[in-house]
């Protein structure tokens, strides 16, 4: 297993290099200009000067090489420094001080290191998208299992219907709808809870009431996101459970006199989870990718929102870095999904 993992990890390096190169070239080809948001009142010569200061005019390969060095060599140094200096995890280690002030990947919009902003955004994204994912899993799995157990029952039919609806309505519809209901209409009613429509990213959880507020402001975006994820996951869980319910070992388990609860929840679910867990793992990169539309609707300034603003501002270093991180996560979670498969299913042995 270890050898399998390391092998895959090492093999993923050229893959990622290739992916990063393709993305870089794609972004180079894409039309757009970091100066697009500078008002029209600023004359062309000035814009040209500003572009030069950002290094836009250099040949693409040079730019790519610079980015690569910064991303693969300098940023890790900064990260290690940060780990050993400020983090609670490894802060007790002596400060490594590897970073000597070399040029880092600098965003064109903010003129600050891209990674700093990314790190700043991760908590919001994890809170909202991550919680939505967890909520969705917690809802989807029981629904999937129960629909499969009672196949073609009313519950199953209704579940199919609702999940399909959940899948087919886009978040730019559900989002504003929920805002209208819970933030606008709710103000004039006594029976609807009033919920914030704008996510406060500076909010800090320090006590019970601030925690409550945090929950309140998360409810709407989490609902919108969870609806979509639940829809897909419960379908997978249902299919997988159906497959396993007909297996011989289920009959064996019943023949032993085990109760239905144990038969289903322990024997069947444990097996049905194998493909579903990998589906879940493969979906995790999308958490980090954020949910562009939902984040936008609720002003959750997470990674997705960062990416979309960077795209519109043609902030290539930012876009490039975010997409690359995303690619890394995809490749990584592919690997993790494979490993999980091996862990969950004792029949599978890598090597």
């Amino acid at each position, binding site marked *: 297993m270890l050898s399998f993992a390391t092998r895959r990890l090492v093999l993923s390096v050229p893959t990622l290099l290739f992916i990063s190169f393709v993305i870089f070239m794609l972004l180079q080809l894409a*039309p*757009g*200009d*970091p*100066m*697009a*948001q*500078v*008002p*029209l*009142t*600023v*004359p*062309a*010569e*000035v*814009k*040209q*000067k*500003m*572009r*030069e*200061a*950002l290094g836009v005019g250099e040949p693409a390969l040079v730019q790519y090489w610079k980015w690569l060095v910064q991303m693969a060599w300098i940023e890790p140094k900064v990260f290690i420094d940060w780990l050993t200096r400020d983090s609670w995890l490894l802060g007790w280690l002596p400060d490594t001080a590897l970073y000597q002030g070399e*040029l880092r990947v*600098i*965003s064109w*919009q*903010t*003129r*600050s*290191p891209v990674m*700093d*902003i990314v790190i*700043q*955004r991760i908590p919001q994204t994890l809170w909202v998208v991550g919680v939505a994912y967890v909520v969705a899993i917690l809802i989807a799995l029981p629904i999937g299992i129960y629909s499969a157990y009672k196949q073609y029952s009313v519950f199953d039919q209704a579940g199919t219907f609702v999940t399909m609806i959940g899948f087919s309505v886009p978040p730019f519809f559900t989002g504003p709808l929920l*805002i209208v209901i819970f*933030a*606008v209409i709710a*103000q004039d009613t006594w029976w609807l809870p009033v919920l*914030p*429509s*704008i996510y*406060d*990213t*500076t909010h800090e959880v320090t006590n019970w009431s601030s925690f409550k507020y945090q929950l309140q402001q998360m409810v709407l975006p989490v609902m919108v996101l969870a609806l979509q994820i639940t829809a897909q996951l419960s379908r997978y869980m249902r299919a997988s459970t159906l497959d396993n319910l007909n297996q011989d070992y289920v009959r064996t388990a019943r023949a032993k006199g085990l109760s239905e609860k144990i038969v289903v929840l322990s024997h069947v679910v444990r097996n049905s989870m194998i493909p579903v867990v990998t589906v879940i793992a493969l979906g995790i990169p999308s958490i980090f990718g954020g949910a562009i539309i939902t984040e*936008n*609707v609720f*002003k959750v*300034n997470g990674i997705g*929102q*960062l990416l979309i*603003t960077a*795209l*519109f*501002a*043609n902030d290539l270093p930012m876009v490039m870095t975010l997409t690359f991180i995303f690619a890394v996560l995809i490749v990584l979670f592919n690997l993790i999904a494979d490993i999980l498969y091996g862990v969950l299913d004792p029949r599978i042995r890598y090597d």
Partner: protein
Amino acid sequence: ERGSDGEVKIIYWQAPSILNPFLSGGTKDVESASMIIEPLARYNEKGELVPWLVDEVPTVGNGGVSADLTTITWKISSGIKWSDGSDFTSADVKFTYDYCTHPEGGCAQLTKFENVESVDTPDANTVVVKFAGPTPNPYGPFVGGESPILQAAQFANCLGAAASTCTEQNFNPIGTGPFVVDEFKPNDVITMSANPNYRDPAKPAFAKVTFKGGGSAAASGTAVMETGEFDYAWNLQLAPDVIAKMQEGGKGTPVAGFGPLVERIMLNQTNPDPNLPEGERSTAMHPHPFLQEPAVYKAMSMAIDRPLLVEIGYGQAGKVSCNWVPAPAAFASEKLSCDTQDIEGAKAMLDAAGIVDSDGDGVREHNGVPLSILYQTSTNAVRQDFQALIKDWWSQIGIETELRNIEASVFFGGDAGSPDTFQKFYADVEMYANTFNGTDPQAYLGNGLCDKAPRPDTQWQGENISRFCMPEFDALHAELTKTADMAERARIGRELNDMMVENGGMIPLVHRGRLSAHANSLGGVVLNVWDSELWNVADWHRIDG
């Protein structure tokens, strides 16, 4: 009393990405920074200059501006302190000049310092700006939100190429303004608190500011007027019926102000035919087959029902306009009028010019070329509604229109490789809005000069988007640059304006104002379109609403 009114929450649907306006130039960045760093003088809501960090605005009359119009001397008020407690001196002002004009700095506000020869500091409170030649409008440098003063001590190491390594400075500039940055989360939120060293001990009334960025205009309008989560929302570019609906929420009020912003249709004077070889398309080499024909562009203009456009698209934030320069009042020409639609008149005019539908397909031809127009603009709900309406009207007078909308970052981006930028203008007509800063339109009027046309050898850069070219216009503009007398300048300006519009450089549509909304409980808001909207944030306070 300072800090007595608690917290104020401001929402901009575009999020500030940096608090140093010299490195960005984006309105969101300039305005958010204006709460922290300030210029020597700024414009008020009427477009008049008011002293800010100085005692009075230098003029020729009070001797602050030399008679030959080559120097201007600013006297800094005494007792002004930076938020860190140190004194604000003329050295900081000079530093700001050095900072922006450094050749490798990529300063966005370089035009402010155009023509400046030197900035001298005879003493700690005096700043002397010398221009290379007579400058009738010497209020470029250090005036207005785009040109605030940076603290020399803080930015000393950030000159030139080092500018982008100064993240800490760019995110937390030390200023003289009413607030200081507590935390800046780029593209997200800024938290600020009252500046303890602010010059007026009674201000600002708010102890804290939360400046949220991002989302959409609709959502920020809702947040102020319907849910009351925020106190101030900037630039609500929404259809009037939507605004009206939000206003029913009863939590806030929209306010509008008018600057020189005009929504217009630019008419391509050159031929954008895709069959022309690359490099000749949309250049002066090939004149447009019919758009230079007066009957055509006049008819196109007559067919438009401008009051309806205002009603549909801008409501109280729009006025019918036939002018390129609708403000300030002195420069606004009154010669042209266009507030009634005249479809029949337009048809008659085309018929009279012999531009008729000869093959019966409903589209008129001019010299055998059908009047088929590709009409592009940036993606934006109101603009798309305008496109639909105008297409409809034009079709009524026998002009066929194909609509195209382009993502704003591409459309307004200057990527020479993209065929979709507004400068390349690979279309017959395009719609967008433009304006100028301050109150003097000289540079703006220069956008009609022949040699400002974008073309391959300028990398498609240039402000003369419609490739308008008239020797008379160029000559008249040259005269403007030499004239100092205000009344005379205004007359020339109006004439240039009329020349452009009458000769088919553009079809002005709507004089757009800016519409922002504030909570009913927020007092002291004075909408200013000539400077940062947040120019008087020090005066904002809480009222019972």
